[in-house]
């Protein structure tokens, strides 16, 4: 054996490599045990959160619903304060006709209504209105030339050819969109589904001639070369539906929100608005979110403070009593901790009502008269009282576990050196209990800031949190983008606190039930 060579293990490989391999195998085995859960959490929990983050900026609806209009508007200069060119109105006619066929125009209307009021009704009206345009002149003219055009089979045959599709881009696009829609619904195209807008599109494609071989289309081109069809004034037709269509501001709004991603929802969460002219404050009566965020923070702080005030003496008592009595008293803390949240909230609802137990007792002992019953529910007071009760165990338990480690002899030593009770507490005991206060406060604050159920039930209108607004936007107003943006902001706040908690306490040191 070479004296200076590497140390070998039993099978002859160098010990260093052998150990490294063993370590690798061990790491791999540990990872293998963790991976099922990691995948599970990634799919059931992290992916939903990522989806929410994505939705807070996603804005494909404009692009998807009126793609042709968006395309034309790209070349339009909004600062000239003119209306967009006639092509924009033609594109809009096709887009809205197709969107109305797929019943998607009202959704776009509601989306744009978040940014400019009146858009929802404008799109609703237009969805109905485009069917009444005078585009039937084209339908009649073309069908008079060859009745075969009224049969979907003819259309399918004509647009089966790639060259024709390239020569008639507008019509081909509309035809393809219509076909896709029917295919996705599992329905078959009938004669009456060939509406005027398809013929109008065919007119737009062929009016200046088109290099096609198809005899049917050639005939249409030839006929128009002889006597052009009477052109339809699309702008005037849209103005007939609603005067708003000749307002440049409406077009500017569409152009501003045509992008696939928008900061609009986040600006909305901060009471701002993305207008064609830049970022502006929202109108006075729509500014609610800053106030709501402030209120959420203020009330969470109040709840945290009340928890410290009520939790500190109790934790002190528990930590300084003999273990046997402390364990009995701990039940008073653990029972609320284990009791259903709904039970505790209903208890407070029962207690705090104007005809409830607390008011009854106060009237009975004569502290207030029957007419002067206190209003303690459906306002901020109700939320703060009920949530302090619900979150108090989360303050007491970490405080208790820190205080248990502070030796009582420190206090006795301080006093024997001449400190008064107060000095001994404030200068010796309190500083050592600060980590417990920190841990409990962050925990309570994190839990309070995102609470939904209790504020919803006892908060009325003045005592609600940002989370109640998120729920409102998901289930009532259906403004999911705004809900996602508000949720993202709240999530960011919580994650910062979580990080702080991890630095101060460590995630591994989270203890449950004492």
């Amino acid at each position, binding site marked *: 054996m070479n004296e200076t060579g590497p140390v070998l293990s039993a099978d002859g490989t160098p010990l260093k490599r052998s150990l490294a391999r063993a370590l690798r195998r061990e790491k791999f085995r540990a990872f293998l045990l963790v991976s099922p859960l990691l995948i599970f959490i990634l799919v059931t929990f992290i992916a939903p959160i990522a*989806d929410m983050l994505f939705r807070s900026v996603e804005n494909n609806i404009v692009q998807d619903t009126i793609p042709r209009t968006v395309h034309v508007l790209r070349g339009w200069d909004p600062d000239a304060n003119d209306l967009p060119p006639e092509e924009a109105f033609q594109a809009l006619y096709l887009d809205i006709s197709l969107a109305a066929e797929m019943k998607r125009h009202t959704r776009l209307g509601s989306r744009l209504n978040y940014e400019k009021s009146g858009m929802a009704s404008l799109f609703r009206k237009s969805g109905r209105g485009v069917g009444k345009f005078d585009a039937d002149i084209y339908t009649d003219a073309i069908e008079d030339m060859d009745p075969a055009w009224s049969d979907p089979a003819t259309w399918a045959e004509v647009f089966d050819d790639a060259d024709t599709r390239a020569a008639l881009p507008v019509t081909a696009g509309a035809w393809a969109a219509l076909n896709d829609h029917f295919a996705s619904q599992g329905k078959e195209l009938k004669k009456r589904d060939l509406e005027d807008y398809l013929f109008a599109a065919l007119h737009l494609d062929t009016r200046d001639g088109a290099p096609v071989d198809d005899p049917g289309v050639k005939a249409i081109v030839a006929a128009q070369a002889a006597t052009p069809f009477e052109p339809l004034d699309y702008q005037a037709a849209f103005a007939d539906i609603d005067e708003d269509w000749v307002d440049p501001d409406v077009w500017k709004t569409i152009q501003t929100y045509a992008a696939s991603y928008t900061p609009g929802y986040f600006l909305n969460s901060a009471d701002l608005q993305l207008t064609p002219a830049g970022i502006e404050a929202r109108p006075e009566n729509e500014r609610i979110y800053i106030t709501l965020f402030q209120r959420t923070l203020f009330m969470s702080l109040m709840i945290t403070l009340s928890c410290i005030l009520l939790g500190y003496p109790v934790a002190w008592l528990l930590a300084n009593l003999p273990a046997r009595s402390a364990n009995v008293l701990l039940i008073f803390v653990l029972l609320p901790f284990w009791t259903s949240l709904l039970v505790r909230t209903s208890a407070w609802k029962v207690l705090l009502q104007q005809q409830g137990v607390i008011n009854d007792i106060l009237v009975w002992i004569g502290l207030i008269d029957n007419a002067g019953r206190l209003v303690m529910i459906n306002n901020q007071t109700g939320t703060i009282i009920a949530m302090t009760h619900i979150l108090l165990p989360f303050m007491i338990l970490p405080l208790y576990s820190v205080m248990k480690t502070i030796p009582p002899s420190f206090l006795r030593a301080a006093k024997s050196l001449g400190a008064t009770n107060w000095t001994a507490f404030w200068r010796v005991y309190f500083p050592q209990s600060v980590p417990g206060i920190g841990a409990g406060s962050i925990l309570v604050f994190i839990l309070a800031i995102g609470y939904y159920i209790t504020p919803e*039930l006892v908060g009325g209108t003045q005592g609600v949190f940002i989370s109640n607004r998120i729920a409102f936007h998901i289930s009532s107003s259906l403004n999911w983008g705004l809900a996602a943006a508000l949720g993202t902001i709240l999530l960011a706040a919580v994650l910062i606190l979580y990080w702080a908690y991890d630095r101060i306490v460590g995630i591994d040191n989270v203890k449950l039930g004492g």
Partner: protein
Amino acid sequence: MSALPPYATTGQRIWHYAFRVICGLIFFFLIAPILIIIPLSFNAEDFFTFTPEMLALSPEGFSLKHYRDFFSSNDWQQALWNSVTIAPMATLLSVGFGTLAAIGLSQPHVPFRRAIMAILISPMIVPLIISAAGMFFFYSRIGLQGTYWGVVLAHAALGIPFVIITVTATLVGFDRSLTRAAANLGADPVTTFFRVQMPLILPGVISGGLFAFITSFDEVVVVLFVGSAGQKTLPWQMFTGLREQISPTILAVATILVALSIVLLATLEVLRRRGERLRGLSPA
């Protein structure tokens, strides 16, 4: 603190007793709201407060009518059934995945341990409304929204942090030489796991499971969004009842749930003592 020294001044005496009174009041604040609904649930009237008959303790003031309501109403029975079918399945998933991962995490060498831990604990930290919103968006995309399995998966995710925390805490006190001894005596890893490791960490697994169970059983925000009318659970039914102020049947349900939490608390306490005994830490 526990005993007042004989040389204490009058001021110290007053403070000593005043402090105890203050603590007593705080304990009263903690426990009274829960206890007060128990007598109220036996109210003979449809009121949320004590009637004069009840205060006089006359038998006419009390009745079991709200309990009869609970056991005869279809809505409540359906809600109870939903809760009873969702929570155990979610618990099973959390405990299964969670225990395996906790064992993995307690190995001496785990790559990215901190990051993995942060991800696994996050369902407990992220506010429920945000989890609910995200799950609503994502589960609608993949067709799980409004289904039994959607709610079960969501609840399992929420219960996992509790399993991870309790089981890793038990594993901290686990003596690794025991598995080596078992291997030395000829046991394969599976036998070692079931015959040596499992019995020792079982109290942790069970208490983690109880936490996961109560998380699912008591959960309302996520089920409100991820579930549909077919998955209406007990807390959901209570939530609707409280919001619309319908009937004091809620108080009867609440009383039953308080009884359930007392049972759970007692079980946990027994498990904790057993765990301490097994690890040779006698209760102080």
